[in-house]
C-alpha cells in the first residue's frame, strides 16, 4: 500500500468489491454494510502490516472473507443464546429466505436467489471458493492466495462445491 494512498482513495477503489462480496456471502443488506465497515476499519488499522508481496486487492479480499466468516460465527453464537434476545428485536428474523438481492433484476430473482440459498448451505470453504470463482470471476491462483491454500486444493474445493450444489438442486427438484 502506498503511504500516500488515503483511506478515502482505498475506499473509492475497493468499496464495491468489498460490499458486493459481503452481500453475496452474508445475504443480508444490513449485515453486508456492517461488515464492509469492519473491513475498512481493519484495513486502516492494519495497513502497516500489509506486505507488498501480495496485491492490495488480494489483501482486502482476504480481510473481507475473514470478516464475513467471523461475522457468521458471531451470529451463530448469538443465535445459540437466542433466549436472551428480546422478542421485539426483529434483526434475527431477517434470514436468508427474506433476502432480496439488490443486484438481481426482477425476472431473475427466483432462480438466482434459490441458487444463492443453496450455495449458502455449503461448507464455508466451498462456499468461499465458489463465490469468488463464479461471481467475482477470480482465477484459481488468486483464490488460492486469498484462502491460503494451494491451487490444487482450490480446484478440489470448487469441484466438491459444484458436486454438492448439484446434489442439493436435484434433492430440491425431487421434493
Amino acid at each position, binding site marked *: 500500500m502506498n503511504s500516500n494512498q488515503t*483511506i*478515502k482513495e482505498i*475506499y473509492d477503489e475497493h*468499496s*464495491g468489491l468489498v*460490499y*458486493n462480496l459481503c*452481500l*453475496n456471502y452474508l445475504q443480508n443488506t444490513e449485515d453486508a*454494510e456492517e461488515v*464492509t*465497515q469492519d473491513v*475498512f*476499519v481493519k484495513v*486502516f*488499522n492494519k495497513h502497516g502490516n500489509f506486505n507488498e508481496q501480495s496485491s492490495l486487492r488480494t489483501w482486502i479480499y482476504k480481510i473481507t472473507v475473514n470478516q464475513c466468516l467471523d461475522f457468521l460465527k458471531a451470529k451463530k453464537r448469538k443465535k445459540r443464546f437466542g433466549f436472551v434476545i428480546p422478542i421485539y428485536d426483529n434483526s434475527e428474523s431477517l434470514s436468508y429466505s427474506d433476502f432480496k*438481492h*439488490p*443486484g*438481481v*433484476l426482477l425476472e*431473475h430473482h427466483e*432462480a*438466482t436467489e*434459490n*441458487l*444463492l440459498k443453496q450455495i449458502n448451505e455449503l461448507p464455508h470453504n466451498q462456499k468461499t471458493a*465458489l463465490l469468488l470463482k*463464479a*461471481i467475482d470471476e477470480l482465477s484459481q491462483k488468486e483464490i488460492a492466495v486469498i484462502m491460503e491454500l494451494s491451487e490444487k486444493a482450490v480446484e478440489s474445493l470448487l*469441484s466438491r462445491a*459444484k*458436486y454438492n*450444489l*448439484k446434489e442439493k*438442486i436435484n434433492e430440491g427438484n425431487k421434493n
Partner: protein
Amino acid sequence: MSSKSMETKNKMLEPLKHIQKVAPASDLFSKIENRINEEQLNKMSLGKLMAACAVIIILIASNSFIINKELKTNKSSSDLTETFGINTSNQLYHE
C-alpha cells in the same frame, strides 16, 4: 470428469451471472470515518487510563515501602526500650 457433466455444472451456475454489482450506501464512508475516529479516541483514553493506573500503582508501592520502613524503625526502638529497661509510660512513681 466428463465434459457433459462439467457443462451441466457450469450451466447450473448460470443464474449467478445475472447478479449485478451494487454500490454501497453513500453515507457508508462517513460511518467508517466516524468509527475510525472513535477507535482512535478510545485508544487515546485507554493510554490515559493506563498511565493513571501506573501512577496509582507507583503511589501504592512507595507508600507501602515507606510504611514498612517506618514499622521496622518503630520495632527496633521498642526493642531498645525493652533491652535497657527504659520507662516509656511517663509514670515515674509506682504505687
